[in-house]
């Protein structure tokens, strides 16, 4: 049984990774063919770094991911606070449902609806050239919002109400209470929301595809454009680099994770001993 389950896992993961491995291996192929490996060479990596378009796409992607995730986090955190404080239950449910729409809808519908909004408003206002950085920023912030709210709202709900009441009784204004008492408590939720929106925005292709213009291209759009035309092998080099960055990040996060777990367990054990003593 054990062997069987190991074999099964190995098989599935092999299938899952085979295409990725092929890309990695053949990005070092000097001859620029995907079926025949001729010689090891870093030629395509050199080509990649000469490609200004790819580098500017990377820059745009990072800029967009940072700004949109920060916007979404600020708006979303206050929103979660407001929702958790709302008195009427139906109001809470309604606001939460509306904010979840971009998450439930298929990306393509969100993208199309955004594009119709921008183009429609532009034609009413007689603007041209409306798509670009701003529309991308708005779209990304919008689809990031529900994820922020989703990770912050539970923190507000978990929070002990008496802490807030104590602060208010001791003379804090509601705003002071929010910044001094509640915010520190919900920080983990805020950060996880921020991170999630950062990665989502970095990765988004479908929505960007509809609301972008050629003067603001992100990395996924660049890759799409490459695969729609003649694929240069430097794209495989780019993919390989991206895969390695993600791999290193994931491993680092997990290592940091298990180290902290161990520390925590030690602490708990020590605490338990101390308690008994």
């Amino acid at each position: 049984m054990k062997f069987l389950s190991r074999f099964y896992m190995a098989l599935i993961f092999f299938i899952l990774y085979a295409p990725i491995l092929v890309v990695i291996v053949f990005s070092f192929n000097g001859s620029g063919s995907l079926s025949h490996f001729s010689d090891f060479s870093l030629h395509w990596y050199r080509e990649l770094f000469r490609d200004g378009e790819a580098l500017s796409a990377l820059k745009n992607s990072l800029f967009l991911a940072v700004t949109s995730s920060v916007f979404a986090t600020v708006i979303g955190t206050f929103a979660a606070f407001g929702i958790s404080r709302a008195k009427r239950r139906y109001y809470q449910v309604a606001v939460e449902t509306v904010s979840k729409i971009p998450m439930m809808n298929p990306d393509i519908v969100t993208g199309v609806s955004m594009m119709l909004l921008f183009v429609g408003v532009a034609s009413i206002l007689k603007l041209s050239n409306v798509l670009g950085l701003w529309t991308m920023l708005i779209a990304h912030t919008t689809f990031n919002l529900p994820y922020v709210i989703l990770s912050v709202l539970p923190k507000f709900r978990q929070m002990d109400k008496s802490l807030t009441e104590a602060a208010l009784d001791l003379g804090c204004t509601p705003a002071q209470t929010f910044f001094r008492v509640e915010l520190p408590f919900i920080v983990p939720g805020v950060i996880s929301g921020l991170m999630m929106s950062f990665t989502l925005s970095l990765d988004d292709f479908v929505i960007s595809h509809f609301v972008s213009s050629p003067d603001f291209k992100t990395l996924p759009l660049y890759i799409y454009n490459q695969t729609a035309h003649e694929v240069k092998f430097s794209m495989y080099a780019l993919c390989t680099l991206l895969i390695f960055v993600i791999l290193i990040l994931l491993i680092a996060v997990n290592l940091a994770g298990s180290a902290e777990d161990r520390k925590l367990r030690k602490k708990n054990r020590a605490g338990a001993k101390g308690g008994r003593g």
Partner: protein
Amino acid sequence: MMKKRILSLLACLLLLAMSTTLLASCGETEDSVTLYVYNWGEYISDGSDGSLDVNAAFEEYCREELGLNVTVNYSTYSSNESMYAKISSGSAAYDVIIPSDYMIERLVAEELLAPLDLSLIPNYAYISEEFKGENVYYEGDSDLVYSIPYFYGMVGIIYNTRDVAEDEESLGSWDLMWDADYTANILQFNNSRDAFGTALYKLGYDVNEATDAQWREALELLRQQKAVIQGYVMDEIFNKMKSGSAAVAAYYAGDFFSMYEDNEDLSFFYPREGTNRYVDAMCVPAASQNKELAMHYINFMCNEEIGVANAEYTYYASPLTTVIANAEYQECMSEVHENAMEILYGEMASSVPTQPYMNLTPERLTMLNSLWEELKVESSIGDGIYVCCGLILAALLALLIYHILKKRRWAKLYD
């Protein structure tokens, strides 16, 4: 707990990203002009493999000759129709676009193009007489010039000599694109005008004046073809033909040479029934914010040196007399393929009847659009798929009913 670690690590990453972005944006200079150029994919010498980077050269030219700090923003499209969608919706403004003949006619008719000021484009003198005055490649107001030819060429069929035997009967004709011997190895255009063009030429009809019934007949032919082709593609064709994953494809003559460079098994012919001769020309959209600079760009593209660089990169036929006469260019082309000049400019090109695409009437365009939709929408999927779906749906339904019944039973028990 694990989350916390992830968070702190990712927070560091975020900070890093933020600082790089800030640094990067600091590096940009203030008073620069951006020129938006929208061109077909793989249609300009871009500096790869030691060629001349034309856009960079233009930026340098502007700095030195015009004293302007210009950045060229270059982006690409893969069909006239997708370019038209962007231009006509007004969702993006470009300064230079390079549509084909029939699309220029349409854009002119819809007043989306600005007339060119030829005093800013002295190099217009070097454009071959074939493309001027009476011979202009689109119908419209001939007093105004809306476009300067960039490249021209003809549609032909590229095939792999490893898969297609020399004595194949359908060689030399559009029939090769319908030949069931090459099922799943044929590539068709992924744009309505060119795809319907192949069928109309094969049927021997006029691509501009065909009647409703003839268009329907063409659709019928394309439907039959759907069973034998591997797919509808545009520029993906390069990788597919080079790697040998498809054997037969209709595409533009110039692109054949780029494929031939990497795969010498490929060969090319113009179908004897007749084919399309197209002219892609540079235009300035009416919405452009930098019309004067755009015309400088167009003039720059007609320089002999730049023209040669582009022609040696794209391998399309150049309308510039200076380029055709250029000895270096001729030598380069004959190195690529022994018959290159012949295929592009010579006997071979003039041996088959050709016809340009004209702009269609709005009613025809709507019809073409709906015919294309009809073709694309229709897919013959295997019966196995339906059987699987039916089984899955039946299983789901059974589960749902079982679930509801169970719930009821439990509810009763509790009562």
